[in-house]
């Protein structure tokens, strides 16, 4: 893609962000707050200091993993609404490995193993939806949503039961052993770098590999794909499994990089915001980098806005919705114009 094409592809997402922020300003005005100081507080809470940047990046990291998961499965025509549950499944599996299976293992063993466990946990949960669709024609929209409840309740069960901390004081797991914690620079853990690397990897997978080519063919036209010898069911299963692995990593790295324990309500809905991230990125893996950063900044800045301007932080959730509403309200052709999927190059 040429620079000009890339610029025009980015135009609508950027415009919808600007429009949504404009609407937020209007809303603040109506609620009786001074919009500019509030927005300023939001911005400086997200980017104003190194602590603010750290908070933003820590929020952006799980959004990036899950956003990539959603983009990858949507590209294959699989409407995976289950990133949230897959994240929890990954967190659960990683915690089980770190606190129960191998609590005494050294970091060189434990870090890769708990990452692997997280990816496997997410992938297995997602694969249930993929198998149900392939074998019984069950809509993955329904099954992934329902599996979210299963995973979230499984975590609740675990932290009240088998994984509960030794003191039994709270419904949470033991703190992860030090060897299980991700290497970090300050609070910025290794997972953030892995997320960025995976954005490039998923881009490569979708646009440069034969598997990605077939997944895109299935996403664009399952009938034509079938006549070309490409099984829509099999590729849907593969894509949702990889997506589950990505979301599972988000959960593992939340536990091993941020919270250091497993507990209920671990995720403030990352797996749902991920859908917004993927759509804003127009299902382009590389574009999920800025999209995740934007939504991460909103999350991080919301607290600052509440503290220094007295605006309830939930207002930013309205912005999250507005961005997507504005984006999908844009005429279809304009959104699609140079659809990156249509080019053999992708967004490269």
């Amino acid at each position: 893609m040429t620079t000009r094409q890339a610029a025009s592809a980015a135009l609508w997402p950027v415009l919808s962000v600007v429009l949504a922020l404009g609407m937020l300003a209007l809303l603040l005005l109506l609620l009786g707050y001074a919009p500019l100081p509030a927005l300023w507080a939001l911005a400086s809470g997200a980017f104003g200091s190194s602590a603010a940047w750290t908070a933003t990046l820590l929020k952006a990291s799980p959004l990036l993993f899950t956003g990539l998961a959603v983009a990858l499965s949507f590209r294959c025509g699989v409407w995976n609404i289950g990133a949230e549950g897959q994240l929890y499944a990954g967190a659960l599996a990683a915690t089980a490995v770190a606190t129960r299976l191998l609590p005494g293992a050294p970091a060189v063993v434990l870090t890769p193993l708990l990452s692997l466990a997280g990816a496997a946990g997410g992938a297995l949960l997602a694969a249930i939806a993929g198998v149900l669709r392939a074998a019984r024609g069950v809509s993955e929209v329904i099954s992934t949503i329902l599996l979210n409840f299963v995973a979230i309740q499984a975590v609740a069960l675990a932290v009240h039961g088998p994984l509960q901390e030794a003191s039994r004081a709270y419904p949470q797991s033991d703190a992860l052993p030090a060897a299980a914690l991700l290497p970090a620079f300050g609070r910025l853990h290794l997972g953030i770098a892995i997320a960025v690397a995976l954005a490039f990897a998923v881009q490569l997978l979708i646009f440069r590999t034969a598997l990605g080519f077939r997944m895109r063919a299935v996403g664009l036209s399952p009938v034509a794909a079938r006549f070309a010898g490409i099984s829509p069911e099999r590729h849907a299963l593969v894509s949702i499994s990889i997506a589950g692995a990505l979301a599972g990593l988000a959960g593992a790295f939340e536990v091993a990089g941020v919270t250091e324990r497993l507990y209920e309500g671990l995720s403030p809905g990352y797996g749902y915001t991920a859908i917004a991230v993927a759509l804003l990125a127009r299902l382009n893996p590389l574009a999920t980098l800025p999209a995740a950063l934007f939504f991460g900044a909103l999350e991080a800045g919301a607290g600052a806005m509440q503290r220094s301007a007295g605006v309830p932080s939930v207002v930013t959730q309205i912005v999250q919705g507005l961005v997507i509403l504005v984006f999908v309200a844009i005429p279809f052709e304009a959104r699609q114009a140079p659809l990156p999927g249509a080019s053999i190059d992708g967004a490269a």
Partner: protein
Amino acid sequence: MHVLLGLVRPDTGQLEIAGRRVDLAGYSPADALRAGVGMVHQHSTLVPAMTVPENIAFGAVGGSALFRRARVRARVARLAEQYALDVPLDVPVAQLSVGQRQRAEILRTLDRGARVIVLDEPTAALTPGETQALFPGLRRLRDGGSAIVFISHKLEEIEGLADRVAVLRRGVLVAVKGAREADARELGSLMLGRDLPGLVRPPALPREEGAPAFALRDLEAPGLREASRLKGVTLAVQAGEIVGVAGIDGNGQRELEEVLAGVRPITAGRIEVSGRLVPPSVRRLRAAGVSHLSGERERGGLVAGFTIAENLILKSSYDDRRFVRGGLLDREAARRYARDVMQRFGIKPADPDLDIATLSGGNAQKVAVARELDSRPRVLVAVNPTRGLDVGSARFVNEQLLALRSLGGAVLLVSTELDEVLFLADRVVALVEGCVVPVPRDADRAALGAILLSGAPQSAVA
């Protein structure tokens, strides 16, 4: 018909209903209803969980806000008796037979005051008995002063019911005749005919002895409907031969295509290429040298949203070492290949990065033809390959079929275009209700048309 119903706005022309010219600029389905036009669709539009009176009351124009069950029921019962359209009124529509539902739909149009009633292939889903039961009601409607438009491709029904016959072919009104003057052969010929300008058919190659290049033996496969289930299809195509399979849609064409493309499982029979058994999967068939070309875009394997180059390599994404190495796609090689192919097959515009959806139907089909024929297949299964194409593109496609034949390819041409089949094919059979019916060597368009429209086949040997 959609114009008449206000669903499609015509580009030019006029519409008169009961002698009054209709203003087409703002003509909507509601206007059509008000003008007294009603349609009975091929597929039921009734709510299955409701009874017939409920269905009729629901959405009625100018009805009262309250649903007065007894009143509506009485009204419907009166109509039903008046027109001999017998329908149970007190059970949910879900429990009614297809024929009963159809009668309910007719009652609904009558209840709305329709004086012009359009029936779109009303008998397609009916048993012969139900069809016979439908006709007295329709006659009574006619005698009561309604105009009835009855769409069908079954000649005996038209002969048994119609006062006048209009033949539509590809959007052109070819003839209007009194039902008494028209005979079945002539109508069949009018319905299915088309001229093929300017094609030259090279002489057939000398026959080689030995196993046919492509053979189907006693193929059976489930169908979308009973009539389209494949019931023991046996066929053979020699190298350098085009065998035409003529037929009307819904007689197993789609099923046969899907079986030969490898996407529909078979329940019995075998497919052989040069005497060797080939398992009916897409990739095995393709590996054995069987190509598949369809006039319908998605069934032809074209992916809208993919570029020309991506579509050209679509069937090569597993193991073709020209484009895939170590799981990675060589996009530059795909582009080079696409430029080369487009030049050889004369496809314009020659930009491999264009989305296939931006091409005209003719050019898109040329891409599909190029993909299927560039591998020099031993066998080509072509299904309505010129459907919906302009004359020039259709000619291109037909020329390519003949060129493959000259190179010794075996072509199975499954088509509803009788002239195309008769002109291109060395041998013709008919596919009627899932069975292969032999066609005499000297059959012309009218004779072939009569076979296709005659309904049940006599024997199933070709």
